[in-house]
């Protein structure tokens, strides 16, 4: 049996990788993908606790997280397309129209 802490550590590792991705990448699409990684790390945790406690609630919560991820991806990618069409860049640090 895998100790519960290993799930936690795996989730932690994915989370940190995701955070670093969000903070260091310039391409917005990859930033969005890193956010997906973070959400995924959360899901692993939820799932591990669901197993640990023998309760299905964690899995249900994970479903909501996935729903959220889907919504985020749809809107986020919609914004990216709209932005790319207007400014023709995908770089987060060039999206500085509000930075005055």
């Amino acid at each position, binding site marked *: 049996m895998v100790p519960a*802490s290993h799930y936690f550590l795996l989730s932690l590792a994915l989370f940190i*990788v995701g955070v670093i*991705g969000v903070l*260091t990448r310039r391409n917005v699409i990859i930033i969005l993908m890193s956010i997906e990684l973070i959400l995924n790390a959360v899901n692993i945790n939820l799932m591990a606790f669901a197993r*640990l406690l023998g309760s299905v609630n964690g899995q249900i919560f994970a479903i909501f997280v996935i729903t959220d991820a889907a919504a985020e991806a749809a*809107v986020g990618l919609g914004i990216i*397309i709209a932005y790319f069409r207007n400014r023709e860049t995908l770089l987060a640090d060039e999206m500085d129209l509000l930075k005055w």
Partner: protein
Amino acid sequence: MAAGTTLLFYFFAALAVLSAIFVVTARNAVHSAIFLITALLATAGIYLQLQAEFLFAVQIILYVGGIMVLFIFVIMLVNLDVAMRQEQFNRQWLAASLIALALGAQLLFAFWLVRHQGGVLSHAPAAAAALQPNTELVAQGLFRDYVLPFEIASILLLVAMIGAVVMAKRRI
């Protein structure tokens, strides 16, 4: 059998972490997406190992078959050749690693606290049968105990759908 599934966990965990690192470091967005898909599949494997078959299917159908297709679609629609020639990383790596370290330390501390005070982490895991039959249990939870959140989630999706259409449409 138990040894087999344990091994599988470490295999999937290693796969997930490695691909996650490649997601963040790959220069090409399509490669990033492929590594993300691998990471998601590995996570799905871990779900399976955690007796969450329904979530395994949801993860593959929704995440891999839906969301990631969307990502790849968008990457292909926007012009990659230009993006490829640009610098892919900003200069915040120091700040980023500090923040990541801080967050990690915080989580580890929380983990240590829970463990130290004899929280759930020290419990023996529940019987494997507790989550079976998985699909039925999830359905009952979703449609009986959590109907309101479920409906709210549907509205969220509806809003996201309309939002995405509005954003992506050229001329409304």
